[in-house]
């Protein structure tokens, strides 16, 4: 295994990290309104949320990647400057993450005791204050373990973005592999993915136990 393979594939690591971080951040933010639709007491909103979740979840990530990257330019080629491969990749990861995070938030919301709403309302706090200051922080805390597990899997799922030509780890491994007619670059890529996942998992566990120690629910 030559050093050139190691350094060649390493060129994609930063992009892999960026794709994961931006895709996850987008999903974590968009997941909130999706979850709110999904749990709304107003039926049309709830139905919309549900349909959106089923639609996004029902289509594989790689299909979303091609749809977002190629779809708009088919109608108007000038949209190609908007839907670059990098932006399309982040958008598709964000979209898929949004519905996943929405379901994590919804499950966490159900874990909050109804007594928390009641106590806050009995104190005269507004619905908005109750949601934002009493419920949301608790939901966030409950959601941390599942969210970090998802974020870790997103590091690996981001490899699919190589299919639309984003220069990340798997993209470099693929091109170097075909140049050298060797599978070695994929071994290297695998090592890099593990090297990214292990410290991230460690940091996630630290975050979780710190929060736990502070609140001790």
């Amino acid at each position, binding site marked *: 295994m030559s050093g050139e393979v190691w350094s060649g594939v390493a060129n994609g690591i930063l992009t892999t990290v960026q794709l994961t971080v931006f895709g996850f951040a987008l999903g974590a933010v968009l997941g909130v309104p999706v979850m709110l639709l999904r749990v709304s007491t107003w039926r049309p909103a709830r139905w919309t949320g549900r349909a959106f979740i089923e639609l996004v979840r029902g289509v594989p990530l790689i299909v979303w990647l091609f749809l977002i990257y190629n779809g708009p330019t088919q109608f108007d080629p000038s949209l190609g400057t908007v839907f670059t491969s990098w932006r399309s990749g982040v958008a598709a990861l964000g979209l898929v993450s949004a519905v996943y995070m929405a379901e994590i938030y919804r499950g966490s919301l159900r874990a909050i005791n109804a*007594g928390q709403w*009641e106590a806050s309302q009995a*104190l005269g*706090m507004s619905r908005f204050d109750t949601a934002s*200051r009493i419920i949301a922080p608790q939901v966030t805390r409950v959601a941390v373990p599942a969210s970090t597990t998802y974020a870790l899997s997103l590091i690996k799922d981001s490899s699919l973005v190589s299919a639309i030509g984003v220069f990340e780890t798997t993209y470099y491994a693929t091109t170097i592999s075909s140049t050298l007619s060797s599978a070695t670059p994929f071994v290297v890529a695998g090592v890099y993915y593990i090297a990214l996942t292990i410290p991230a998992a460690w940091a996630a566990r630290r975050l979780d136990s710190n929060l736990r120690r502070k609140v001790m629910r």
Partner: protein
Amino acid sequence: MSLADAAASKTTSAIRLDGVEKRFGDHLVLKRISLEVQPGQVVALIGPSGAGKSTLLRCINLLERPTAGTITVDGVTVHADHEIKERDLAALRSRVGMVFQSFNLFPHMTALRNITLPQQRVLGRSKAEAEARARALLSRVGLADKADQYPARCSGGQQQRIAIARALALDPKVMLFDEPTSALDPEVGLEVLKVMRELADEGMTMAVVTHEMQFARDVSDHLVVMGDGDIIEEGDPHQIFADPQQARTRQFLRAVLDRE
């Protein structure tokens, strides 16, 4: 008392329920209940489980919306058959403090923050003002040293006293207690009952759902016995304990007093 005084005291009863009914679907849980609590009075509500005691209490601050009837607290009136305005709801809730069986402290905030946040958000008090009030109330319930603890680090009895302080911080006209000691060991419950007794002695208007028969008999001014969504019997606590008029009251008292 002059006629005018009598009229004034009538309109200023602390709590007044007129024909309050609550249905959950087909299930009639409160059967047109009328009840009046005078300022400074302590009313104890007792009765078998499922009688509707909690539901009645929760109707007073509109955690449950009654399906019929009228509720007046300290001059603020809400009719079940009119749409309840957000402003009336806030006005009513600001006058009523509530203490739950399960404490319901906010687990992500310290004891102090549990008490200051509602003051700041609901009454618009400054942080300094709210903290001064919170610390005064925490010492009053004997927990000055717990200000910076999270609820999970406090015993059940301590949590319930913090919850009482949190409700008192908003200067309610009326305090509602829904079995405040049922989740606690008897000795620990005593700490909470002591705080409640002091509150009663200071003239707080209180409605207390309780299984503590001693508290009902010795601390309350008025006893309400509920069964099956209705008031079976009400009156002077000592009299009812000594000589209940209704067979169902007798039956209930025999069952609970035997258990003690």
